[in-house]
């Protein structure tokens, strides 16, 4: 450990592992440590025994749930947008070869007390019971506008400068009613609150396009894909990338104390009495608690079930979005379900999550509308975790701290944070313009 490194990375969460991989590929000398004896930190997937150890230490899982090893319960449940930023990173780094994916069966939205399939194209809009007859026609026109919109083709802009007009403007131009706006904004554009309405419409339109293009990619029932054996595979795959390019890995390192010189600049990390020197430290908020502030909290319920979520056409993997307004809340609530078909549970078992940005300290009460949609559950665990953001100045202390994972159901914000950190660390932009329309899926 008494060598000098360019970068020491602390914590093997997904963000830290992607960064470790990218930095090693760039030729930097990386030491990657974790205080735990497993990979993934907050973004690991747990077996039953680990799940009980974490939430019900005094108890043991019942035999009826099946083999502990066959469970991979995500601690940060999310799906990957098939054409999204994480897929671009996976292809850019060629980490895809270590992973196997399957499309997610369904994407649904909660509206007026019922669960509906999310209509993503003009054709689906016409069929959707979410809208009345005349509204369907208006929505169809708007979908066509979005599908045809191309940045570099002014004709497709229909005279609107989307960097200037707001999302609200464009919605009123097409005369869409509030109910339609609610599902388009939250279940298609995947906005987590309504602030987007007063921002330039370009982002809103691009998000809708991403959804539709991701949906078309695998011709499944959703725009999402998910790795076999759970999300815990992702940090491991990027850690392998880092190791393949010379990164050194040490798990189970207690303490991992960052050392600062007289000017407050980090110069190394100490564990078990040995200090490894480095120029920069990259870590998750838990390794530098004095340099982060709390910005919110996520409430969630983790459930083990023996059936799919009712009213989702028997989907073995599914997302359901409950837009804030439908529940009289400030932030959306999400249902996420995965099963044995993605190898995260034994045959016949399903893992469901209900999660939201917490507005109270009572997850049991707050998550009730979501939990009620699940039907009977075999087991349920409630949890609330704080979200942190860095408040340090990296040019002074040479520390680069990731943000905690948010309650969103996909990885777009996760990758956004990683790319911003990469630029701060290296001074370079990562070019992710892989040709996604050319990238495809192959049978194993």
């Amino acid at each position, binding site marked *: 450990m008494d060598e000098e490194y360019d970068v020491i990375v602390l914590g093997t969460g997904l963000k830290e592992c992607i960064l470790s991989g990218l930095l090693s590929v760039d030729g930097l000398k990386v030491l990657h440590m974790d205080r735990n004896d497993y990979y993934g930190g907050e973004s690991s997937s747990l077996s039953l025994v680990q799940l009980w150890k974490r939430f019900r230490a005094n108890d043991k899982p019942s035999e009826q749930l099946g083999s502990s090893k066959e469970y991979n319960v995500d601690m940060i449940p999310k799906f990957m947008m098939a054409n999204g930023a994480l897929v671009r990173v996976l292809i850019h780094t060629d980490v*895809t070869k270590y992973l196997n994916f399957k499309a997610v069966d369904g994407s649904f939205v909660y509206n007026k007390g019922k669960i509906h399939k999310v209509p993503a194209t003009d054709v689906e809009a016409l069929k959707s019971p979410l809208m009345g007859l005349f509204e369907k026609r208006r929505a169809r026109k708007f979908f066509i506008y979005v599908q045809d919109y191309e940045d570099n083709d002014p004709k497709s802009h229909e005279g609107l400068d989307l960097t200037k007009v707001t999302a609200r403007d464009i919605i009123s131009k097409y005369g869409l009613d509030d109910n339609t706006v609610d599902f388009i904004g939250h279940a298609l554009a995947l906005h987590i609150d309504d602030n987007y309405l007063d921002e330039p419409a370009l982002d809103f339109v691009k998000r809708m396009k991403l959804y539709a293009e991701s949906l078309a990619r695998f011709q499944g029932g959703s725009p999402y894909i998910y790795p076999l054996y759970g999300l815990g595979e992702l940090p491991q795959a990027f850690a*392998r990338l880092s190791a393949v390019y010379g990164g050194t890995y*040490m798990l189970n390192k207690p303490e991992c104390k960052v050392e600062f010189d007289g000017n407050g600049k980090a110069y190394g990390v100490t564990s078990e009495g040995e200090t490894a020197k480095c120029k920069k430290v990259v870590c998750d908020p838990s390794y530098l608690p004095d340099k982060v502030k709390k910005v919110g909290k996520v409430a969630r319920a983790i459930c083990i079930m023996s059936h799919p979520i009712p009213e989702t056409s028997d989907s073995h993997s599914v997302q359901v979005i409950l837009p804030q307004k439908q529940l009289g809340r400030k932030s959306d609530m999400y249902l996420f379900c995965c099963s044995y078909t993605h190898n995260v549970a034994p045959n016949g078992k399903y893992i469901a999550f209900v999660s939201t940005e917490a507005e109270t300290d009572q997850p049991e009460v707050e998550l009730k509308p979501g939990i009620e949609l699940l039907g009977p559950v075999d087991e349920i665990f409630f949890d609330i975790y704080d979200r942190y953001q860095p408040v340090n100045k990296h040019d002074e202390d040479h520390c680069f701290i990731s943000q905690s994972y948010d309650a969103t159901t996909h990885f777009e914000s996760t990758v956004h944070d990683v790319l911003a950190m990469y630029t701060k660390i290296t001074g370079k932009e990562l070019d992710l313009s892989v040709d996604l329309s050319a990238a*495809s899926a192959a049978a*194993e």
Partner: protein
Amino acid sequence: MATIGNNNLNAKLVLLGDMGAGKSSLVLRFVKGQFLEFQESTIGAAFFSQTLAVNDATVKFEIWDTAGQERYHSLAPMYYRGAAAAIIVYDITSTESFTRAKKWVQELQKQGNPNMVMAFAGNKADLEEKRKVTAEEARLYAEENGLFFMETSAKTASNVNDIFYEIARRLPRAQPQNPAGMVLVDRPADRSQSAACCS
């Protein structure tokens, strides 16, 4: 796990063993027919594939080399996840590497898939004059633990193809299992296929 289609078998194979036992050299000899006297400690490419024809079928090995994560006891479980076969390598001139290899066998018996085909390779068999581990001792251990055993030399190529061939022969042909997922690949041109999913 081994997956089948038209008599073609895809099999993930992992290599385990002490630093310097010759894991990468065995792969290099098998895949490229080469040997480097001063093979560097593994960084860079640590993933290879090679196809073998055995009797009625072809076996495509996806070979994973360790990339050094095991050095500080930090190998990721994904490394052996789904592996159909493993070669545990020791260096016949080092008793320490033999002891380490036995620990890997225990680890695989604990973590790996129960149908995994395990090969035990006593490498550097060309260095007879420096031998510290007898073939009898290793063979006895292998038999007791359900592995098959060969002494190999990546340098002279002795038994290298043979050990991979023997693994291919022993891979179980029909295994009930979940349908495999898809691997995302960057495949230029052929746009007509870009939306095809195959689960």
